[in-house]
């Protein structure tokens, strides 16, 4: 049998030279950037002995200050919990106005969208620095940071969830003269509930991780302990703190998985 290679379709779609040129540009930018940021296997290798020394100083962990540290990690969880709770309420209220076709006041659609985007685009550490500078060091700055961050994160997902659901149950209630706000609570909310629970749990997980870091800039929680321990070369205490953080994150994530399985997957 004779092979007829000429009939085969081309392996690659035709692209113009501009596309190849842009690939090349991306590659060049990567090479230049890695040089600029000092990413080199040699540097990494040189650091290995120091890493081993640090690890050996971290072990065994020093549990002498376990009670103040436990108090501090509880504070971290409380910042995350209160911040997420209030943030979700705020995110939900904003999302109602930011969901197209649903917004009770259509004029506020763009404003609420913009507000959510603004809260989301500024990183949490910047918010923390801002709140520490304006209301002072401590947990209230941290909680406010989590609130703002959660509004930005959950508000967007809430609004999108409300836009994406099946519209017919809402239409059916609209057709018999039921008000918009009632429709949001009796037709929209039950439909988006699984997605809301999911987003809220993700918000909590995210908040726990950020509230650990917030202490680094003085916004309360375990972060400040970690910073002090590292700066005072108390590496064995630092490792205790890391273990506590690890346990907290694992517990919250596991709880979140369990709740999700219970309420969403059936």
């Amino acid at each position: 049998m004779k092979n007829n290679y000429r009939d085969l379709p081309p392996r690659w779609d035709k692209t113009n030279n501009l596309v190849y040129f842009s690939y090349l540009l991306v590659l060049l930018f990567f090479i230049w950037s890695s040089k600029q940021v000092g990413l080199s296997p040699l540097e990494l290798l040189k650091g290995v002995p120091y890493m081993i020394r640090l690890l050996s100083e971290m072990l065994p962990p020093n549990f002498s200050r376990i009670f103040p540290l436990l108090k501090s990690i509880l504070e971290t969880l409380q910042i995350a919990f209160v911040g997420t709770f209030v943030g979700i309420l705020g995110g939900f209220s904003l999302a109602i106005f930011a969901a197209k076709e649903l917004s009770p006041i259509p004029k506020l659609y763009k404003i609420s969208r913009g507000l959510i985007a603004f809260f989301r685009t500024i990183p949490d550490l910047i918010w923390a620095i801002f709140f520490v500078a304006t209301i002072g060091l401590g947990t209230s700055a941290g909680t406010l940071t989590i609130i703002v961050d959660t509004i930005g994160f959950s508000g967007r997902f809430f609004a999108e969830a409300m836009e994406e659901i099946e519209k017919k149950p809402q239409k059916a209630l609209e057709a018999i003269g039921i008000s918009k706000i009632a429709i949001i609570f009796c037709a929209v909310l039950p439909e988006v509930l699984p997605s809301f629970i999911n987003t809220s749990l993700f918000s909590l997980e995210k908040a726990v991780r950020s509230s650990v870091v917030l202490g680094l800039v003085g916004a309360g929680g375990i972060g400040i302990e970690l910073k002090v321990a590292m700066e005072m070369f108390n590496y064995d205490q630092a490792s205790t703190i890391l273990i506590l953080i690890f346990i907290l994150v694992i517990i919250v994530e596991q709880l979140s998985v369990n709740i999700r399985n219970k309420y969403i997957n059936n």
Partner: protein
Amino acid sequence: MEKFTKSSILRDSHEILKVTNLSKSYKNKKVLREINLNVSYGESVALIGSNGSGKSTLIKCLLGLTNIEKGEIYTNQIRLNMKNNNLLKFYRRDIAFIWQTHNLVPRLSVLSNVIHGSLNSHPNPRLWYQAFAPSEIRSRALNCLDQVGLKNFAKNNVNTLSGGESQRVAIARALMQKPKLMIADEPVASLDPKVGIEVMNLLKDLTLKQGITLFFTTHDLKHAEHYANRVIGLKDGVIKINIKSKELNELDVDEFYAA
């Protein structure tokens, strides 16, 4: 409703539904042309016509779900006015609507869904969920469920219901409105024939018993003949047939449906 003007009310009429010179087009295509239609209190009227004849558009116009281009619609002596939200709510209050699919709110209980039917006349946040609703409303909802034979399903999640059961819950929700006019757009088209007949019987019995006027569309001529006093046939946006349902079999229906 102090905002009513004289022109919004049609007095001393024995018609529950009155449509005059209604026209509607989508993108330069005329869907309804100069429709004139009267339905008297207590009547049961079937609207027939092939796909694209304008049935669904007419229903949408009657409910104020789409803008009307020309003409007037009165139900219960009230003129449809889409520019005023309060008037529109008032207009819709006495009209119940059964969709082709039940359109119940998923994940809520049957009882909550039925209670929603009374939200237009009682705009009370306690009626959003059955758990908060006053006992009087809950008991009325249970009574409506009893009338469709689903009293024992009150606390069930609507997601667990079959198609026929869901449509019966939708009828219970409609009864909760205490409507004067019930409009149904192919209410049994998504059900199997046996369940469809059960639902149609239920619809007919309940409306007859409670003096509710029924206006429904159907593709099933047997349903039109059996469940309606009068049949209106729509073709290319024009009313071609307007007869007593008894006369339906004498008419050459094939010709009506033919292109």
